């Protein structure tokens, strides 16, 4: 009798442990949980491996690069790499110019895309389907097709090499990826109940007034998202920026950090003028310091505002229902 009770108890205990480890339909088992955390963490590590490598290499003194023992952890923190990279890229000056190149077109883009998105979502206008298809088309047609005539146009208008080559298209709703932002605003404003705006208009506001008083404050989440992405994409765009700035990017001309990174080697040679086999020849550590420096501003911005970035897709309905 007692024996039988024991075996039942044992069974129950076994069952209990099995539930904890393997899990049941109601709850995930411990083993699966551990497996998932391990998997996620290791994938995240692999994912970030290039960045970690970049950071650690950028801090290495010259000798460490050749020493396979110091593959990961620098023998000493060597900040002169950063000093060299700052000089090579004319960092603070470039940073300031890059900020201007990203900031002002972004402002224009947010302003116009918000208005256009609202206009398409709020008003029943004839030809709406046509305009929507055109928006989609500007999104799908690769910019390389219009890049050449645009370049000719900009040169004719004497826009190349100036900030206006970025601001003017943005002001006319044709900045980098403007179509995507118009669609984001369109989706957002469509979800806002019409009655709110109508109530404001009945109270005597013009549609313009209603837009600024009701629609803009309501769409702040979408505005934040578009500000962030527009800024990042203007900051990061390289091919088109290079083209519209032209080859004449002299020291007083506009430039971006990534453009400076692209010609890092040449700039380094001209700054330091190293002779063959000299100790201050360009090495990987300095290159990595330069790369690190060129992503640093966005990285800091991202770490501060990451919640906004990550929540963005949920809030703005990018997924398009």
């Amino acid at each position, binding site marked *: 009798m007692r024996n039988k009770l024991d075996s039942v108890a044992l069974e129950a205990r076994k069952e209990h442990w099995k539930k904890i480890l393997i899990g049941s339909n109601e709850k995930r088992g411990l083993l699966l949980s551990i497996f*998932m955390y391990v998997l*996620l963490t290791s994938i995240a590590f692999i*994912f970030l*491996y290039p960045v970690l490598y970049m950071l650690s290499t950028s801090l290495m003194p010259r000798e460490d690069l050749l020493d396979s023992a110091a593959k990961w952890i620098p023998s000493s923190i060597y900040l002169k790499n950063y000093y060299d990279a700052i000089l090579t890229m004319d960092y603070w000056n470039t940073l300031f110019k890059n900020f201007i190149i990203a900031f002002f077109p972004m402002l224009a883009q947010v302003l116009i895309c918000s208005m256009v998105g609202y*206009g398409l979502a709020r008003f029943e206008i004839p030809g709406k389907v046509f*305009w929507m298809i055109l928006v989609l088309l500007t999104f799908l047609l*690769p910019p390389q097709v219009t890049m*050449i005539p645009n370049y000719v146009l900009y040169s004719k208008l004497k826009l190349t090499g100036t900030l206006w080559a970025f601001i003017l*298209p943005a002001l006319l709703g044709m900045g980098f990826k403007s179509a995507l932002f118009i669609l984001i605003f369109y989706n957002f404003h469509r979800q806002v109940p019409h009655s709110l705006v109508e109530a404001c208009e009945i109270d005597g506001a013009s549609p313009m007034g209603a837009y600024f008083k009701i629609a803009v404050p309501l769409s702040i989440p979408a505005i934040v998202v578009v500000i962030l992405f527009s800024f990042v994409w203007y900051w990061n765009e390289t091919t088109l920026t290079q083209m519209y700035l032209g080859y004449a990017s002299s020291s007083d001309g506009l430039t971006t950090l990534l453009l400076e990174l692209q010609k890092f080697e040449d700039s380094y040679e001209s700054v330091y003028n190293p002779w063959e086999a000299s100790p201050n020849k360009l090495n990987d550590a300095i290159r990595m310091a330069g790369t690190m420096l060129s992503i640093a501003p*966005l990285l800091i911005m991202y770490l501060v505002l990451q919640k906004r970035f990550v929540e963005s897709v949920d809030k703005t309905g990018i997924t398009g229902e």
Partner: protein
Amino acid sequence: MATDKGVTIPKAKRFSRRRIREWTYGYLFILPWIVGVIIFFLYPAAESIRYSLSDVQLTNPMQVIFWGFKNYINVFVTDSDFPVAIVSFAIELVLKTPIIVAFALIISLMLNEKIKARALYRMLFFLPVIIATGPVMDELTSQGVASVPMVSQAAFMTAISGALPAFLADPISDLLSSLILVLWNSGVQILIFIAGLQKVPRAMYEAARIDGASGWESFWKITLPVIKPMILLNTIYTIVFLATGGQNEIITMIYDNMFYAIAGRGYGYAAAMAWVYTVIIGIALLIAFLLLREKSDRKVVYESRRIKIKGEWYSAK
């Protein structure tokens, strides 16, 4: 007074004052964009077609001499690099798109579970969107840190190049040697999947569980059908992104040919390249769409649900 009038006028009337007002303001809002689309999109697109059919000479003023399809023929006949680049781009798309989308799906399925530090993981997986740009990726590739560490690659690659013909083995070993950077393109897709997954009602899973369905079955029967439209969306996004951004060889080629000082090259030739490239992307998008679109019977289910939701909306009003 004016609003009173607006209410009394029957809605069927086509040109009511209210409607005209609505149209005027509507067009006022989108006017800047309409101007922009004409100046910076329709006009350049038309010009681009004209250039691609012409010999463009960069004299002052620029001369555009029509010469038919010569540029298009040259792109395929005299240029040895471009057709090769197009083919390798196509293979690249076929290899990379499924990998990126599948990776994004797996990660977002895991992130959709109840786990701790979910915000942190989301932040980490989204990070590359901010920093993955052409020059940065080029630097990282040149450092050889673009591949998954600790995988014994040499042996693996030898095996691949032994087993497969060169035109397949090369892209695959390229892919492996830059696998991390390829996966870096999946940030936005992960967020889109997560947003989609969160819309699946928890009650649905619970109901299935009570009926005795395992997690595996719920995935195939509930999760997958719901996120299928997201898979299409993400595939299109991935294709557009791979085609237009970052380290794309063909874009560099178009760009270089614009300023190439050899007779027969230049703007016209580059424009023809751009259009050929566009057609290839268009075909890729079309194939993706045909493979992943909703089957018509399923569409009916969705439509009916949407109407129902809409119906509730109106009745509430």
